[in-house]
């Protein structure tokens, strides 16, 4: 009985503190916890960023960079919320954006087709929408073959075909004749995952019909799933000449599976395989420095964030029409020659320590 009373008191106190905390932060009008932290001026324009999931490494990075970028715009009050990788949750957040009458909404879809009708509702409500990482296309809404940006919206994105082309083009010359390769794919139906895979067909497999795909499976962007797959695949007895991964995270997992295998990494640390990723994450850069990842293409959340905020500002000031916002960040190649400058970038933003070792 005493314990029950104690629990009730603790819970009541926690609720009171939470409510007080929510009530004491004017200008941070969100229900799910994240706000930009910018000191927006009174009468500032209210922008909401609806992220795919807080547990998604890239989405978390993008959210963090958007908050940093928003700090440069004193007349913009940025609110960040997350769909938590659940279509229903994200759609609900998009509906909330209409209720709360935001001045502009930036949407990072979890599933383009699932969010498309709700993005259209925002457009119909007269709220400018920028879709980012990935772009929402007209085909996502109506099932047509129209791959242009969804009507009434703008986009700031990275081009997944261009990103994967970076590794695929190199691989045409690097991967040995009659090689065996394995492919690690992102989630089925994810626009970036599918387009990156398509780029490998277009720029590599069509050029190299001699290459055999030994295994191909979905590791859903996750390193632990890739690790388990690769541990089994290396048992086939056939040497895997190259790991083709649709992101760095999965490449890292696959590499961990063979790091201690002398068939793949010699005693002096020299790799007897090639590995290609995308994203240019800190982990990817460290693996390139170790000589275990051949190359990757940077998908910079910082660049995406800067461009998103820049266009949001211009649209809100009436300098640019929302439908004219159609921009893509570059996908520079990161390889053994230039990896140090990118490692330095991650050291400066605190993601890895000084020596980068």
């Amino acid at each position: 009985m005493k314990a029950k009373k104690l629990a009730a008191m603790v819970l009541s106190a926690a609720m009171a503190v939470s409510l007080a905390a929510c009530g004491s932060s004017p200008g941070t009008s969100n229900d799910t916890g994240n706000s930009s932290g910018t000191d927006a001026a009174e009468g500032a324009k209210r922008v909401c960023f609806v992220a795919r999931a807080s547990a998604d490494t890239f989405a978390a990075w993008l959210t963090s960079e958007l908050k940093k970028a928003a700090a440069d715009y004193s007349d913009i009050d940025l609110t960040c919320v997350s769909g938590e990788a659940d279509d229903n949750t994200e759609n609900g957040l998009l509906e909330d954006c209409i209720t709360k009458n935001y001045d502009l909404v930036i949407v990072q879809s979890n599933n383009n087709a699932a969010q498309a009708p709700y993005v259209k509702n925002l457009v119909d409500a007269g709220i400018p929408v920028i879709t980012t990482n990935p772009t929402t296309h007209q085909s996502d809404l109506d099932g047509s073959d129209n791959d242009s940006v969804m009507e009434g919206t703008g986009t700031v994105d990275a081009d997944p075909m261009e990103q994967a082309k970076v590794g695929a083009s190199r691989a045409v010359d690097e991967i040995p004749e009659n090689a065996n390769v394995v492919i690690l794919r992102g989630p089925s139906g994810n626009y970036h995952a599918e387009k990156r895979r398509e780029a490998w067909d277009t720029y590599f497999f069509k050029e190299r019909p001699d290459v055999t795909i030994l295994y191909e499976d979905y590791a859903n962007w996750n390193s632990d799933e890739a690790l388990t797959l690769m541990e089994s695949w290396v048992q086939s007895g056939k040497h895997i000449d190259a790991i083709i991964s649709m992101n760095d995270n999965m490449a890292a997992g696959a590499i961990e599976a063979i790091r201690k295998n002398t068939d793949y990494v010699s005693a002096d640390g020299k790799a007897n395989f090639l590995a290609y990723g995308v994203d240019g994450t800190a982990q990817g850069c460290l693996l390139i420095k170790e000589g275990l990842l051949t190359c990757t293409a940077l998908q910079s959340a910082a660049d995406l964030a800067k461009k998103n905020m820049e266009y949001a500002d211009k649209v809100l000031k009436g300098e640019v029409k929302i439908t004219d916002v159609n921009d893509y960040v570059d996908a520079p190649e990161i390889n053994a020659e230039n990896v140090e400058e990118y490692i330095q970038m991650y050291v400066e933003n605190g993601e890895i320590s000084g020596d980068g070792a």
Partner: protein
Amino acid sequence: MKTNLTHYLQKYSIYIVLAVLFIACSLISPYFLQSNNLINVSRQLCVGILIAYGEMLLIISGFLDLSVGSVLALAGVFSVSAYQQTQSMLVAIAVAVLVGMFCNLINGFFVAQCNVPAFIATLGMQMAARGVALYYTNGQNILQLGNFVKIGQGTVGPIPVPVLIVIGITALIWYIMNHTKYGRGLYAIGGSRSAAEASGINAKRSIYVSYLINGILVGFAGMIFMARNNAGLPNGAIGYEMTGLTAAIVGGTSFTGGIGTVSGTVAGAFIIGFLENVMNLTGVNSYIQQVIEGSIIVLAVAYDVVSKSKKSQKVIIVKEAKETAK
């Protein structure tokens, strides 16, 4: 003679399923029996087995833990972070275990003291622990683990370190379940809590102890998981509670409480592990793997349940026949 055979078939049904699966796997893939592959499977199962032991303890006493995946991630990232700051494996282990125990102390408090259903209490912890892990790391992976990876990737001779850890913990859990008052009490609580309490067993204390042991197991699982992946992954191990629950239940732990064994849980984990492994070796698409895995798990458990219920029906019929004869 026939009755004896049927009795043994029923009693050891899960091990028969495991043996049949093992033979089938070795026929399906020529790589399955390679020593490297079997070591891989053992290493892959370590995290799942530790989680399954925790779930087994809780299910036997009539409870469960849905926060395992999140607490594992929280304990893992805190442990990695502690190691980076101190370079001490002992500190890292202490942090992982303490985080796991703290989270499970809260679970135990709500379940034992406040009678909150375990499903709800641990579901809340699932969300809260994941939130703390993501908040602490800002959603980013922690890199540059240094020698921390040895606990997940190292070997002693040909045997992987995590396998040795699991063997040690298995012996300990087996001893606790079979040779301590607490272990025997768990079965009694799961069978009937009120009857157990009437016979002098302190059920509340047993529930606390079960959650705390679960926390220790999750702490070790978190360290091994992060070390294997060479990164502190705040978004790692999502859904791992189902991995643990599945291994325990496939291994014969009864969801109604009071029944379950360490060896059965290990067998359950290996059934799932062999199944996943052979499908990966033969290149079965992972989405199809889920369909096959789901079907086989249901069939294995259905066989186990049906064979045991036939046994109890038979006992009732024999009793009734004896009473009629009297």
